[in-house]
C-alpha cells in the first residue's frame, strides 16, 4: 500500500561538507600542483624556433613557457617578468582588421592605453607590417603585426612586461623580431 511521503528531518552538513571539500581538494589541488610544476623549457642558443609559418632565433636567456604555448598556434617566451608571445593564424581579409580588433581588446577588455597611432615597420629580412606601443598601470609593451597575403596568414608578436628593465628586454625582443621570417615549412 503506497503511503504519503513524510517530512522526516535529516542532516545534510556531512554530505554538503564532503562535496565542498571534494571540489576544493580537486580544483585547489590541481591549481597548486600546476603552480609548483615548472613550465620553463630552455631553448638551444642560436637555433631557430618555429611557430606556424614564422621562425626566429630566440635571444640569449629567453625560455619557452610550455603551459602558455599552443602547438602550431602560439609560442610564449619569457625572461624575468617580460614576455614575448608569437601567435600565428589564418588571415581572412582586411589588412588592418586584426590590428583594430587587437587594439579594441587591449583598450576595452584589458584596460590598456595605446600610445599614439600604429606605424609601419620593416625588418632587415624584409618582413613588414604595423606596430604600436601600449601601457597600463603595471606593464608596458609593443605589438607587431605581419599579414602574409600570399599565404593568407597572420603573425602577431606581443612583447610586454614590467616597466623595470623594459628597455633591455625590448632590445632583445627587437632582435628576435629582426631574425624572424615566414619561411618555415608548413
Amino acid at each position, binding site marked *: 500500500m*503506497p503511503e504519503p*511521503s*513524510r517530512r*522526516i528531518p535529516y542532516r545534510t552538513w556531512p*554530505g*554538503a561538507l564532503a562535496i565542498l571539500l571534494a571540489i576544493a581538494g580537486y580544483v585547489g589541488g590541481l591549481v597548486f600542483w600546476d603552480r609548483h*610544476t615548472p613550465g620553463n623549457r630552455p631553448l638551444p642558443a642560436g637555433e631557430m624556433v618555429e611557430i606556424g609559418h614564422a621562425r626566429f632565433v630566440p635571444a640569449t636567456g629567453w625560455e619557452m613557457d610550455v*603551459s*602558455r604555448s599552443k602547438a602550431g598556434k602560439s609560442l610564449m617566451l619569457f625572461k624575468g617578468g617580460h614576455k614575448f608571445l608569437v601567435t600565428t593564424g589564418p*588571415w581572412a581579409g582586411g589588412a588592418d582588421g586584426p590590428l583594430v580588433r587587437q587594439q579594441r581588446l587591449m583598450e576595452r577588455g584589458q584596460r590598456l592605453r595605446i600610445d599614439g597611432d600604429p606605424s609601419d615597420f620593416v625588418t632587415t629580412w624584409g618582413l613588414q607590417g604595423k606596430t604600436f606601443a601600449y601601457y597600463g598601470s603595471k606593464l608596458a609593451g609593443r605589438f607587431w603585426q605581419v599579414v602574409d597575403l600570399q599565404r593568407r596568414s597572420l603573425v602577431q608578436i606581443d612583447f610586454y612586461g614590467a616597466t623595470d628593465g623594459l628597455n633591455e628586454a625590448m632590445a632583445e625582443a627587437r632582435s628576435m623580431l629582426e631574425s624572424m621570417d615566414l619561411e618555415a615549412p608548413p
Partner: protein
Amino acid sequence: MNLLHVAELQDKGDWPIGTDSFFQPHRAAFWVLAALIVNGLFYTVNMFSMGFRVVPITALLGILVWAIYTLVFLLVFRALDLLEQHPPEAFALAFAWGGLGAVYFAAPANIAIQSLCAKLVSPDFVAAWGPAIAGPITEEFLKLAGVVLLVLVARNQFQTYLSVLIVGAMTGLGFQVVENLTYTVNASMHFPLENQVYPVLINLLTRGLLSGLWSHAAYTAIASFGVAWFLLHPERPMVARIACALLCFALAWAMHFIWNSPWLEDLFDGGYGEMAILLVIKGVPAMAAAWLFWREAARENGAYLHALAAYFVPERDLIRDDEWLRLGAPLLRYNVRRQIGWTFGLRARRLKTQLQREQLRLIRKAMTYGRGAQTLRHEVAIRRIRAELDPLVAVRL
C-alpha cells in the same frame, strides 16, 4: 540528541505529511549550493562584462540566441511532461548550478590540467588530447556534485529515476549553454573578420545544432542515473550502490572523453559537411546511451505512477482506462495530444494537454498528502477540462 536519532525514536507516522521544498534555509546543503551559485554568478558577470565591452553585438546576440536555444530544450522537456517532476525552483537551481557554480570551478581546473599536460608531456600532446583529458573528468564531476547537493536539499522530492535524471539534464543544459556563450564571445574577440554576427552563427551551428543533442545534458543525465540508483535502492548493499554510481559516472566520462578526443578527425577534412558527419559519428553513441537510460527511467516512472494511480485515484472519470495506460509513457501522451490537435483543433489539443498534466498533478499531490481537500482543486480541474473537451471531441465524431 541529533535529528536522525530523534527520527529513529519517533514513529515514522508522527512526522508531517508532505515533501520538502527546495528552499531549505536550515539545511547546510542549501547554503552550500546557493553560495557557490552566487559566487559563480559574480565570476560569470565579470567575464561577460569584458565581452560586452569588446564585442557588444556578439555578447547581446549570443545571449539572445543561447536563451532561445535553452527555451527549445525546455519546451521539449515540457512537451514530455518532464517538468512536472519538480517545482520550477528545482530546475532553476539545477540550471544555475550547471551554468554558474560548475562553470566557475571548471575553468581553473581545466586550465591547470592542460597546463600540467604541457609541462609534463608537451604542448603538442595538449593540442591533441588536452580537451579530452581535462574536460570530462572535471566537468562531469562538478556537474554531478550539484545534482547531489540538490538531492541533499530535498531528498524526498526524488522518488523515481526520472526525477533525478531531469535535474541532471537541466544541470548539464545550464553548463552547456553558458559554456557555448563563453566560446561564442571568445571566438568573436579573436575572429579573423571584422564581423560580430558570424561567430554567433558559427557557434550556434557547430556547438548548438551539430553537437547539442549529445552534449552536457546527455552526459549528466547518464551520470545522474547512478545517483538515482544509489538513492532509491537503500535495500541493496552499499558496495553495489556505489559501484552503480561509479559505473554511470564512468560511462558519462567515457562518452565525453570520446567526444573531446581527436579520434577519427584525420579521416575527415575541415569542411562543414564532413565535420557534421564526424560529429554525428562521435555523438550518436552518447545519444543512444542517454536514450536507453531515459527509457529505463520512464519505464520505472510509469510503473510508479500506475501503482499510485491505482491506489489513490481509482475513479475512472478522473483517469479513464486509456489515459491510465498512457500515464507512464510521455511519448504516447504527446502523440495523443498531437492527434487530437490535428483532428479536433488547437483548443482541443490545449485542453487535452491540461487534462494530462492535471492528472499527473493529482496523482503526485495524492501521493504526497493523500486524497482530500488538498487534491480537490485538481479533481475539479480535471472534471471541468473534461467537460469542455468531451463536446469538442464528440462534435466531430
